[in-house]
């Protein structure tokens, strides 16, 4: 097997083993009901994580995702409840604003040559600040459209419910996978992560690609915010605080190299699911503090970074050995 696939294979294996262990302890975790809830409960995280995957493969980082999720939720709530817009129109406005916000950050990163860490940190404060100016409190959204969406689901065999937002997340992963692995834009993203200088010399449109990557990241952040508002039927400026870190953790656990150039959209799905599994286990157990989730995620993250280090340094050694004269 190509060593690059090892982190992905390891994540998948760990997920299967962990799930099997959970089922041995709580057999009722093996049901489409639990699986369906997995998808629904983690839909917003998954959607945002797809964006984070693109950003990280390109060698960047986006710290503003959580704040964009919060802003998108609040903006949706304000547009729907205060201005009386139809949710679909509100969503279109929210997605446009989010994409423009991301494009702005991408432009700052490219043209001003400011590291993404700094630009998106500033973006995080700005988005969170704007959300808090719009409202200090949680705004409940009571709209026919929201009620309809929340009540729609596809009944899985075994009684599980595949909700609209769960389905939307799967769709985002599918489309994200196609974009990353099958399009020219996708190859540009990997090229930037490999070596931006070489990429520029080889004729990759670096500026356009950078702007598009961050616009896509914030677009998906906005979509995640809409999903979050559907999930909670409200908009709250302090929603999803620190979620960008969960998203980054999911991406890394899913086998994407934090330094860029290597990664898989599918891996991120497993990364999100693994986080969901830990949470579900804690709910089933009932006695553990929910903070154990963080500890488990921290350990997993550390393990995967170590694993990548091992895989990639082994690779480096092999390449060097080939250079030695015969």
């Amino acid at each position: 097997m190509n060593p690059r696939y090892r982190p992905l294979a390891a994540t998948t294996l760990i997920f299967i083993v962990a799930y099997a262990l959970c089922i041995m302890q709580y057999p009722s975790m093996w049901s489409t009901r639990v699986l369906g809830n997995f998808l629904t409960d983690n839909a917003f995280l998954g959607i945002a994580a797809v964006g984070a995957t693109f950003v990280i493969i390109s060698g960047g980082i986006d710290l503003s995702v959580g704040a964009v999720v919060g802003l998108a939720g609040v903006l949706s709530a304000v547009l729907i409840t205060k201005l009386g817009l139809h949710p679909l129109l509100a969503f279109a406005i929210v997605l446009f604003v989010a994409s423009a916000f991301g494009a702005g950050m991408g432009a700052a990163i490219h043209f001003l040559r400011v590291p993404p860490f700094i630009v998106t940190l500033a973006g995080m404060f700005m988005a969170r600040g704007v959300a808090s100016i719009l409202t200090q409190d949680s705004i409940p959204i009571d709209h026919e459209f929201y009620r309809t969406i929340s009540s729609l689901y596809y009944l899985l065999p075994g009684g599980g419910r595949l909700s609209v937002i769960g389905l939307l997340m799967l769709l985002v992963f599918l489309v994200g996978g196609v974009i990353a692995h099958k399009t020219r834009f996708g190859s540009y993203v990997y090229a930037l992560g490999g070596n931006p200088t070489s990429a520029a010399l080889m004729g990759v449109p670096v500026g356009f690609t950078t702007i598009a990557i961050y616009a896509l990241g914030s677009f998906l952040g906005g979509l995640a915010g809409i999903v979050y508002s559907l999930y909670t039927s409200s908009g709250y400026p302090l929603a999803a605080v620190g979620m960008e870190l969960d998203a980054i953790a999911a991406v890394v656990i899913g086998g994407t190299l934090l330094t860029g150039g290597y990664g898989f959209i599918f891996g991120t799905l497993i990364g999100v699911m693994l986080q969901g599994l830990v949470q579900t286990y804690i709910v089933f157990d009932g006695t553990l503090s929910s903070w154990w989730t963080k500890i488990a995620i921290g350990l997993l993250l550390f393990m995967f970074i170590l694993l990548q280090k091992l895989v990639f340094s082994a690779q480096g050694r092999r390449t060097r050995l080939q250079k030695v004269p015969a």
Partner: protein
Amino acid sequence: MATAEDVVLEARGITKIFGNHTALKGVDISFRRGEVHALLGENGAGKSTLIKILTGAYTPDGGTIELEGQPVSFTTPQQAQALGIGTVYQEVNLLPNMTVSDNLFIGRQPSAFGMVNRSATDAMARTVLAQYGLDIDVRAELSTYSVAIQQIVAIARAVELSGKVLILDEPTASLDRHEVEKLFEIIRTLKARGLAIVFITHFLDQVFELSDRVTVLRNGFRVGSEPVSALDRTGLVRMMLGKDLVHHNNGPVDGEPDGGDVLMSVRQLGLTGSVLPLDLEIRKGEVVGVAGLLGSGRTEMARLMFGIDVADNGALHIDGESRVVRSAREAVSLGFGFCPEDRKADGIFGDLSVRENIVIAMQARLGWFRALNRDEQLEIAGNFIEALDIRTASAELPVKLLSGGNQQKVILARWLATDPRFLILDEPTRGIDVGAHAEIVRMISRLREDGLALVVISSELDEIVSYSSRVVVMRDRALVAELRGADITPSRIVQAIAGQGVENVA
């Protein structure tokens, strides 16, 4: 044979100025179809500046460029590429994390409805590489292949994209003998296909083996442009180093060459792929000059002695005891000092003050628990600023604001502050003005009189002759000659570098 009508790319009067430094002065050069044109020159001669102008990375301050008789000007490498000028750099400038076929066709993949047709791309990649006799898995990542194969992929890409002029910037620097032959075969095929090939190298053998024409640059001037058949090795080295071999016989340095105790002796010390095993003794109170062209292994030898690279062959004795120097830190604790060649990259801490730059090695040697206080630091720095005549407005000035010569003195002061027994200076006079140059040369002699052992690497033959007690000559990663006494003359050194008529005296 190529004629004047075959000229593909012609540059006339190319001038490039950086600040107050003129990197190229009115250089004329022309490249012809079906000809391999070697471009030679020491570091700082202007080779890379010229290449960057021809490939659009720099814009010239004067002169014209004509491609197939039409005046052209380009501001980006992409424009030059589109017009037919492709470049392959020494460090392969491709994407190691992507597949071979991605590297060949990124941005140009056949696609439909926005989707890349991967199997068609791979098939195209296989067809292209087959022309180079390469049958590899084009879906594997580039980094899984050897540098030689990466180099061929880079060439294939450049030829595919451009197809008129192919510039190869030191393509053989990290290849072994067999790989170099394979590469040369490919270059000859491309030459037969009618490409104009520009070949930059430091290996004279390769110039004679592959090239039809040689242009030598020195200090931003074109020294000459000759058919290879009209040149011999000595003539070529003379063009590169600019030696008029009649004069300059200063005679040997006074003092007893074999008088001092042996400080360091190396036996068959070498590192695979870097330096071939060599023998050398270094005594207290002598300057061993190291001559050789760039890429001859002179810096690599110094790195072995200082523990930056660790030898995989041979033994090193210090004060008669066998030692292994595994790190620069260990070397410093033995009382060694090393002033590297590229002081901007390896030597100075540009944003730190003169004082901090001077005391840093001394502080490292003392250990962090015996911190020098500010007054002690100022006193030490002050002493050296005075002793070495470092021209700075104050000890607190950031070092990057000083001139090159004064920066060099700061680095020298840093090592002298550690009270070393053995100093290695790599190109200590490069890029500094004439006055400072003379002072550094005087200082080297003074340090020798103080009983230090010094190894000084330099491309300036006059300079080496003036201060060396012995001169060793490196060529093709091996120590090829050791000259002493009356043999230390620029002409003997040039002959040794060229590998003609010098028996190993050692």
